């Protein structure tokens, strides 16, 4: 087969493969004796040169060759795909709420209130966001980490102090529809009244 044709085929194989393609795989694919590993690797070198100044480059990784977006285009491509604003899970919200209001708090204590285990992913996410941090380790068996909120959490939510967190009172002013959206309202008016009473108590006593 003509060298240029082999090169084109190698190019198309690497582009159409989900995982990196090794020169060995390519060699095995061509049952032609004349197509040696050496020839294949030379052709790949030529391809690498061809793509030197392109938007994508041909790179060697541990399991073979693959195309990657070139370094100078990476940021553009990255910006082209806006990360979908993450929807926070109820579990994450609850965990965060407990860390805010009951800090310093350990995982076991969070679990005690929530009645279910807290997944490591949630803690990891909150730590990575730098919304919480490990304040220290409790001096009990197992030395559990103690969590608290960070300045970063306040900053990223435009707060100076935790006291600026909205009060339940303010939220009670919301329309029924808004409440339903927030999931405060269970269509049951009795429950709502009761909720409001507790909410008020809570506001007076807890958030100053």
């Amino acid at each position, binding site marked *: 087969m003509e060298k240029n044709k082999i090169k084109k085929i190698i190019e198309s194989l690497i582009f159409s493969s989900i995982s990196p393609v090794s020169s060995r795989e390519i060699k095995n694919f061509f049952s032609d004796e004349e197509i040696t590993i050496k020839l294949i690797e030379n052709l790949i070198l030529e391809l690498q040169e061809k793509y030197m100044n392109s938007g994508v480059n041909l790179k060697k990784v541990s399991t073979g060759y693959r195309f990657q977006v070139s370094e100078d285009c990476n940021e553009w491509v990255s910006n082209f795909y806006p990360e979908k604003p993450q929807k926070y899970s109820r579990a994450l919200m609850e965990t965060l709420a407990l860390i805010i209001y009951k800090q310093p708090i350990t995982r076991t204590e969070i679990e005690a209130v929530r009645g279910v285990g807290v997944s490591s992913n949630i803690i990891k996410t909150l730590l990575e966001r730098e919304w919480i941090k490990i304040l220290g380790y409790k001096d009990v068996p197992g030395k559990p980490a103690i969590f608290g909120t960070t300045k970063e959490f306040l900053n990223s939510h435009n707060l100076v102090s*935790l006291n600026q967190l909205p009060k339940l009172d303010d939220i009670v002013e919301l329309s029924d529809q808004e409440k339903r959206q927030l999931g405060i309202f269970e269509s049951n008016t009795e429950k709502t009244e009761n909720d409001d009473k507790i909410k008020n108590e809570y506001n007076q006593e807890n958030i100053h």
Partner: protein
Amino acid sequence: MDIKSSEVKNVVDIDVPLAYVKGKPYLNIPKDLYLPPDALEIVLESFEGPLDLLLYLIKSQNLDILELPIAKITDQYIQYIDLMQDLKLELAAEYMLMAATLAEIKSKLLLPTIDEDTSEEEDPRAELIRRLQEYERYKKASIRLDDLPRVDRDFYLTRKVSYQKIQKEEDYERVDLEKLVIVFHKLMQQTKFLTPHDVKKEHLSVREKMTFILNSLKKDNYLDFKNILDITEGKSGLIVSFLAVLELIKLSLIDCVQANYESSIFIKLK
């Protein structure tokens, strides 16, 4: 389907009736059935409904749809239906309906025309011919459609070329603070944490101060208690700080040490 075409062939070979149609054994496939003998079931199974079968019967005899020799076609159609039933092929009700339609048309055509002027009256075959033509158009179109180049069969795309996702701080969506308050409130309700006794102690500002203190403390470092207090916070601020220290001691998170009565109180992480 429980009978494979090869088995059907074997059956034919050993002279056992291929099928019984109206109680009459068929040793061989009837000569007027136009179908390859070794693929009886495959052929029977592959019809896409009564129109498809009719179309097959017409085409296999090089007839024109427009001629539609109804008597001949009707007989063949019914033979097929009988065979399909004998082979226990799942037979859609539509096949039976078509048999009835064919029989009806046949009988209409057999009736003598009474009045010459009724030539304007529609040929009883017209509607069926129209349907056959219509079906044939789409059947042909579907074959051409299947021949069109199709992704992952006739042509291939490049895979998504990977790139490094650049994480930006602004990418993080804030949590809805109001929702956070509600979530906490609900949790408290659930766990009956919200008893007056507990609540009074759980001043958020004390909690915040506790975190502040823990943050200020470095491992193995002592911190002067006075430095924790912030005069600008006023009296309540001082009380909050004091309560925070007491709470931390209670939680055995910190130790308090004092060299003597006069000297400063130092706190350190436990």
